[in-house]
C-alpha cells in the first residue's frame, strides 16, 4: 500500500469530517431555508458576529470584494456555447465590479475600470440577447423581466457614479455595485430555472 493510498484510507475511515456533513450541512440548509423566508437574516447574523468579535471592517466593501466568486447555485449548467458564454460574461462582470474598492481612489484607474464595466455589461447583455434569439422559451417573460431589471440596476449604478464624482461617497458605489452583482446572479438563476 502506498503512502497516498494509506492517506486516502485514513481520510475515508476517519470520523473527524463527520461533523461537517452531520452538523454543519444541516445548519447551512436551515440557514438557507430561513433566508428564503426572511431575506436579510444571514446578513444580520454575520453583522452580529462581527460586532461581537469587535471586527472593524467595512461590511459592504468586503461583500463586494468577495462577490466575484462563482456560486454553484448561479451557474447555468448547459453545455451549449451560448450558456457557457453567459456564465463567462457574468463572471467577467462580477470580477471587474469586485475590483472597485481597489481602484476607486485612483481617478485614472477608476475611469478605466468604469470603461471595463461598461464593456462587460454590454457583452453580458449581448450574450443574453443571443440566447433569446436562438432559443424560444415558454417562460420568456420571466427572462425578459430579469433582463429589464438588470438594465435598471445598471442605469442606477451609472447614476450612483455620477453622484459619487460630486460627493465622493464611495460607500454608495459599493452598495450599487453589490446590487448589480446580485442582479447578474439573478439573470443566471432565471436562465437556470427557466431552461
Amino acid at each position, binding site marked *: 500500500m502506498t503512502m497516498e493510498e494509506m492517506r486516502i484510507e485514513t481520510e475515508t475511515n476517519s470520523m473527524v469530517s463527520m461533523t461537517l456533513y452531520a452538523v454543519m450541512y444541516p445548519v447551512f440548509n436551515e440557514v438557507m431555508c430561513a433566508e428564503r423566508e426572511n431575506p436579510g437574516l444571514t446578513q444580520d447574523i454575520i453583522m452580529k458576529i462581527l460586532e461581537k468579535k469587535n471586527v472593524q471592517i467595512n461590511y459592504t466593501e468586503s461583500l463586494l470584494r468577495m462577490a466575484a466568486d462563482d456560486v454553484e447555485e448561479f451557474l447555468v449548467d448547459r453545455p451549449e456555447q451560448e450558456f457557457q458564454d453567459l456564465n463567462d460574461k457574468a463572471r467577467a462582470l462580477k470580477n471587474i465590479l469586485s475590483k472597485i474598492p481597489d481602484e476607486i481612489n485612483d481617478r485614472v484607474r477608476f475611469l478605466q475600470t468604469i470603461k471595463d464595466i461598461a464593456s462587460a455589461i454590454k457583452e453580458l*447583455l449581448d450574450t443574453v440577447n443571443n440566447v433569446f434569439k436562438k432559443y424560444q422559451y415558454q417562460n420568456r417573460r420571466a427572462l425578459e423581466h430579469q433582463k*429589464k431589471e438588470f438594465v435598471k440596476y445598471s442605469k442606477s449604478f451609472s447614476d450612483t457614479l455620477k453622484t459619487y*464624482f460630486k460627493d465622493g461617497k464611495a460607500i454608495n458605489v459599493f452598495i450599487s455595485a453589490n446590487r448589480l452583482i446580485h442582479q447578474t446572479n439573478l439573470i443566471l438563476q432565471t436562465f437556470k430555472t427557466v431552461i
Partner: protein
Amino acid sequence: MEEDVKKVKKPGIVSPFKRVFLKGEKGRDKKAQEKTTERRALHTFSLSLPDHRIDPDILLNDYIEKEVKYLGQLTSVPGYLNPSSRTEVLQLIDNARKSHQLAGQLTSEQDAVVSLSAYNVKLVWRDGEDIILRVPIHDIAAVSYIRDDSLHLVVLKTAQEAGVSPCPSTCPDLSKSMTLGSLSESGAVLVEVCCLLVLAVDNKAAAEELCLLLSQVFQIVYTESTIDFLDRAIFDGATTPTRHLSLYSDDSSSKVDVKEAFEAEASTFSFQGSLEAGDNSPSPSSTPASPQTKTASEGELSTTATELLQDYMTTLRTKLSSHEIQQFATLLHEYRNGASIHEFCINLRQLYGDSRKFLLLGLRPFIPEKDSQHFENFLETIGVKDGRGIITDSFGRYRRTASSASDSTTNGNGAVRGDGDVGGSDERLAPSEGDEWDRMISDISNDIEALGVSMDQEGVTP
C-alpha cells in the same frame, strides 16, 4: 534726523540732466502705470493648496483666468512628438524662435490672458482683449511644463484641423505615427500632425498652478465622457433586439419594450447638454420633448429600429438649429438617392463642425452594411470613435456587431438591408423590404424638415 530725511524741494534751477532723463523715465513709468491701471482685473478664484483644487462647478458653470505670455503656436508638428521629452520640445521651440515663428524676447507685448473652463482654453491679448485662439478641451492631447533657466514654459499639444501632412519616408520615427499609413503620390507617407501652443509664465508656482487646473479640467471632461460611455453601453445592450430583426416582424410578442427599463433622461450633469452643443455658457440641460413624429407602418418595422430613429431625431432637435436640420434632411435625401457614403460623411462633418462631430456616432445603426466599413474608418480619421470626440484604446471593442439596426435588418434570406441602388451595390434588397425602409427614411426625412420649419416658426434657438 527726521528733518534730514525730509528734503523739501526748493524752487529754482533744475539740472538739465535731470530734466531730460528723469522726464523720460517718468513718462515711461507713467505710461506703464496707466497701462496697469487700465487693465481689468482677472476673473480668478482662490485655490486650495497644495494641489490648487478648484470647485468643479466653477469649471463647469464659470471660468478662471490666468495671466501668461503668449509666445506663439507651432503647426504641423509631427504627432509622435513626446510631450514629456524636454529635449524634443525645447529643440522645436529653439528652432522656432530662431526662425521667428515664436517670440524671442519676452516683453509686455506678449502679455495675454488664458481663460479656462470645462469647455475650452481661450487665449486673448491682455490689452484690447482680442482673441488669439480657442482650443476645445477634447483637442488637447497633453500639457507640459518646461523650465528653461529663467523661462517657465507651459506647452499645450493640441490637434491640428488639417490632420495630416506628408512626411519623407526617411523620417526616422515613422513607425510611431503610421496611423493612416497611406502613401501620397510622391511616395511620402502621411503622418498625423499636431500643434504646440507655447506659453510662458512668471515662475514655477504659476506653471504648476496652470498645469493642475488643466488636469482638473481633463478629469471633469474625461469623467463625463466615461460615464457617457457607460450609459451608451447600457443603452446599446438594452435596445438590442431580442429576436432576429426583420422589416416584417410578425411576432408581436417579441417586441421587448426595454425603453421602459432605460429611461432616456437628462444626465444629472448639467454640463452634458452644453458640452455637446459646444457652448461657452452652459445652459441647464433638459429632457427634450419628443417631436410629433409620424412613423407609418410601425408595426411592420421593428420597435427597436423605430425607437433608434426617433431617438436620433430627438437628439438632432436639441443639437442643431432649424436650418441645420433642414440641411441634414437634404444630405440624408441625397445619400438615399445615390450620393456616395464618402460625400455623405464629408458633408455631415462639415455641417456638424468640430464641437458636434460626435453626432455622427448616432448614425451608425442607419448606415447599410456595405458602407459601414467606410463609415467606421471615417469616424476614426476625424477622431470620433466612442466618446465625445475622444479616442481611447478600449473603445476598439465596439465594432459593428449585431447590435445595430442595419445589421439586424438582415432577413432570413441573408439579403442586406439598404438602399440597393446606392453606390451601385451588387446586393439587392427584396423589393418589399427596401421599399419599406425607404418609406421609413422618407418619413423621417420629411419629419426632420418639418421640425426645422416648425422650429423657425416657434423662434426656438438651440
